């Protein structure tokens, strides 16, 4: 289980201070931390995501012509974004958005959107 999933699963039970202590422990134990750290920086991904959610619904809801991008497996998200960046997949808007993204930034987006849950449609 990844550190992130472990934390989100147990967050309610152990509380914020417990989590902080766990993370502090992780930072003091590089081997454990390296092995279990999420691949992307989700906080960075959250910032970068603001470019995405002008079109894609943060709720994960599909709308005409704009596919949902929430709760995808991270590997799949990364592969799709790389294919836009490499201009293999068509869609000029997505090619344009993906063009400047580094591997790290794509991984951050994958981690952020991958960690979101699909929410019911807001009426």
């Amino acid at each position, binding site marked *: 289980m990844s550190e992130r999933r472990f934390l989100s699963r147990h967050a309610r039970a152990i509380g914020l201070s417990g*989590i902080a202590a766990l993370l*502090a422990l992780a930072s003091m134990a590089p081997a454990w931390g390296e092995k279990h750290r999420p691949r992307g920086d989700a*906080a960075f991904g959250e910032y970068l995501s603001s470019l995405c*959610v*002008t079109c894609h619904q943060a709720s994960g809801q599909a709308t*005409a012509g704009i596919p949902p991008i929430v709760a995808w497996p991270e590997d799949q998200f990364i592969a799709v974004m790389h294919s836009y960046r490499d201009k293999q997949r068509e869609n*000029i808007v997505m*090619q344009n958005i993906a063009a400047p993204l580094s591997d790290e930034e794509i991984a951050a987006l994958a981690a952020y959107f991958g960690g979101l849950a699909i929410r019911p449609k807001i009426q």
Partner: protein
Amino acid sequence: MINRRQILAGAAALTGTLAAPMVRAQGKPRVVVVGGGAGGATAAKYIAKDSQGAIKVTLVEPKDTFTTCFHSNLYLGGFKSFDEITHRYDKLASAYGIRHVRQWATAVDRSKREIVLADGSRLGYDRLVLAPGIDLKYDSVPGWGKDAEEVMPHAWLAGPQTQLLRRQLDAVKDGGVIVMIAPPNPFRCPPGPYERVSMMAHQLKASGRTRAKIFVLDPKESFSKQGLFQQGWERHYPGMVEWIGPKVHDGIKSVDPKTMTVTTGFETYRDCALVNVIPAQSAGRIARDAGLANASGYCPIDPESMKSTLDPAIFIIGDASIAGDMPKSGFSANSQAKVAAMAIRGELTNSRTFPARYANTCWSLIAPDDTVKVGGRYEPKPDKITAAETFISKTDETAEYRRQVQQENIGWYAGIVADMFT
């Protein structure tokens, strides 16, 4: 319930990277956002959301609902109802704790860092976001003015004017003459006048009024997506649209709302069935009166943050700002709002920030399922926000591709209004 962001914030605080001393020793830092459009609503939401209650956010906007200028042409063309382009602000309060003050902001007292409201009361701020949009220059077309807008509507501020233009369009008889006076640069929504012409022509054609004619009198030598629009007009509305540039019309000399006459240096259009005057524009008055605009009538900003170059406590976003290569669009305003929101959150809570990134796409509907787009990615450079890479539709795209682009357009609208209001 705790969320992942709080976990990350908690972890970061422990390691000391995101320690958050407040600017004000007592109470939360205060942000006031003036204007609830694509820029202001987005900024208010993102500051409140990302600061998780650490910043007190007040939105000053007199209306309970916002009618989007974007897609108001689709209302004109019969593709959307007025309700579908009108949205409520109430979730900004209920979901994000934003205080919505339903008043006009009349002035900025920069020395006291206060906003003056229409009732004379004041709101203090630590940071101010000004998103007043545009003001129309009522004196920019001779013979036209505020008192003529009910006869010759501008419909460039979405709302009752948009509905008036639709009623006037519906009343145009077959064979009637429509004149649009297009605005000079810079103005809100560069492709907007030409999408509007397309939607007017669509309504006329769909109701069998194909002998009606639209003359576009333009003070500009060229316009956004010109080749795409002109190809579309020839393809879908042959003989119904004539664009006339300044070399041909030799200047718009005057309009007369009483006789529905438009006079140019070259020709006089009498007994017009509809005259749509889209005048010259400037930043909203509150920003100009506060001394935040330059000679252009718009407000210079720092490309890294959207902060006014004239006042470090004020950020100016959207149509009122001088955003370099970015067009004045709802998409641009939404993008700029997120950069400003991040910069403000960073300044007021010492929290983590990232380099500014900007994007824009403008979709334009020419005819049913025939949509084109223009857009780009923008980066802050020392002198201005600069286009890094741009794109535009091509004239040889297939009908199926254009249909897909229209689907994108519909999906984008749902996305941006969700991003602004929910």
